[in-house]
């Protein structure tokens, strides 16, 4: 049982606070007056002051610098690893279904159509041990807004910083980069991309690489088609999505003999290496050897991509009528 007086008990908390320098002015004054008159509390006050001095000395005690440097080194190594694996994602609704968008600190690294649900579990990355996904905040909302504008036809470019870390090989990355350069409103055959990446015989490998495009829409693999003009595969077997995206860009498509393809006679053409686009019947092609052609849905799209109308067939004077 305490032998302190009621006044001493009442002032106990303030006494401690005053000794630690945390009391308000009024409380500090009351403590000062009390300890001047009360010897036990004065001793207690001095005891707390001594504790405070001892604690201050502890505060200044250095940690062995070797331990700290080693801990920092370990942290740097693990942070680097995390930075390479960490993706921030959000799942958004869109006219093409739910889409997962993920970004690293370098840029957008994944755009994924979710077919089997609307949660992260529906993503092919949810069980990928090489990737750590965390749900992001508002930083992906601007990206989603731009995507909706694109899918609505109000935007023709998605100028996002891209991070191709999910590419599976250097070849895959090169194919994705070449595909990213295919302009809006244009289609090229797989053979054209193979030629572009310096491996003209690798048409199948290019098609295979584009089967896993981590960034569909923004890396427009929907603009890459078969040599026959068939749309071939997209996002698994979702050729309908490919047709929707191409239609948005004005690319004419039709089903012939059960196969969905472009309508080549209704598109302007560009011979590899040329700076001028032509109508499909341009006489200047008669001497050219066959090559993978780029086809444009409109003169505007060809010219927006930096190409001029051919001075022989004059598509500017004789545009294709549909």
């Amino acid at each position, binding site marked *: 049982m305490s032998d302190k007086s009621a006044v001493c008990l009442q002032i106990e908390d303030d006494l401690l606070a005053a000794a630690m320098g945390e009391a308000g002015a009024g409380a500090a004054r009351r403590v000062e007056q009390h300890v001047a008159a009360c010897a036990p509390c004065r001793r*207690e006050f001095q005891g707390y002051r001594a504790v405070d001095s001892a604690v201050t*000395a502890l505060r200044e005690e250095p*940690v062995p610098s070797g331990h700290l440097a080693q801990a920092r080194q370990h942290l740097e190594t*693990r*942070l680097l690893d995390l930075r390479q694996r960490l993706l*921030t994602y959000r799942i958004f609704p869109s006219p093409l279904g739910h889409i997962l968008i993920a970004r690293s600190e370098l840029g957008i690294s994944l755009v994924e159509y979710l077919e089997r649900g609307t949660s992260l579990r529906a993503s092919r990355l949810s069980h990928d041990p090489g990737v750590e996904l965390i749900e*992001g905040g508002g930083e992906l909302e601007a990206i989603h807004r731009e995507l909706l504008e694109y899918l609505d036809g109000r935007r023709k470019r998605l100028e996002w910083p891209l991070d191709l870390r999910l590419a599976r090989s250097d070849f895959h990355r090169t194919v994705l980069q070449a595909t990213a350069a295919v302009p809006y409103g244009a289609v090229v055959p797989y053979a054209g991309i193979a030629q572009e990446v310096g491996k003209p015989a690798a048409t199948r490998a290019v098609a295979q690489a584009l089967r896993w495009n981590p960034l569909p829409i923004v890396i427009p693999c929907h603009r890459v088609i078969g040599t026959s003009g068939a749309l071939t595969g997209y996002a698994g077997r979702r050729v309908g999505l490919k047709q929707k995206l191409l239609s948005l860009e004005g690319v004419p498509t039709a089903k012939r003999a059960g196969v969905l393809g472009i309508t080549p006679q209704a598109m302007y053409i560009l011979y590899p290496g040329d700076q001028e686009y032509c109508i499909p019947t341009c006489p200047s092609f008669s001497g050219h050897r066959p090559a993978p052609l780029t086809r444009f849905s409109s003169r505007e799209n060809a010219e927006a991509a930096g190409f001029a109308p051919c001075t022989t067939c004059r598509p500017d004077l004789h545009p294709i009528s549909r």
Partner: protein
Amino acid sequence: MGGEVFEAVVSAHHGEIYRYLKRVVGRAGDADDLSQETFLRGYRAYGSLPREANVRAWLFSIATNLAKNHFRSEARRRQAYEEVRASARGAVLPAPEAELVSRETGALVEGIVGRLPLKQRLAFTQRKIHGLDYEAIGRSLGCSADSARAHVFQALRKIRQGLDGHGLLPEERER
């Protein structure tokens, strides 16, 4: 996510967070592991941290949660206590009298702090060693600022009582 920005956060706060954890958990290896985890968690959540947030207090809060989890294992608690006792014993070396008294006091204080209930130890260390305010301490411990202050004061009372009888307090030296 801003890797470069977070580098600056690491540079500014790693040393202090490591010291805090070392003082709380005792072992350098555990402080190393927990400080890594503090910053890895921090990195993951940094993008969603409000701009006006107090990054230092936020990191202390993460570190405190990790320390609490760490001590859920009773065995670890005992091990840390032994580490603190061992380092407290090792700290008492021959020296001039005033310094000796100061070191002895420091070592005793460390020993007492090592035996404090976890919340008191965490609150005391955040307040008296690292100077965090009671609001921040309360947030990190999941209690009010008043409760955080009560934990700190309770710790100080115990330290004061623990030093009694060792001839280290001024009134004892005067006797």
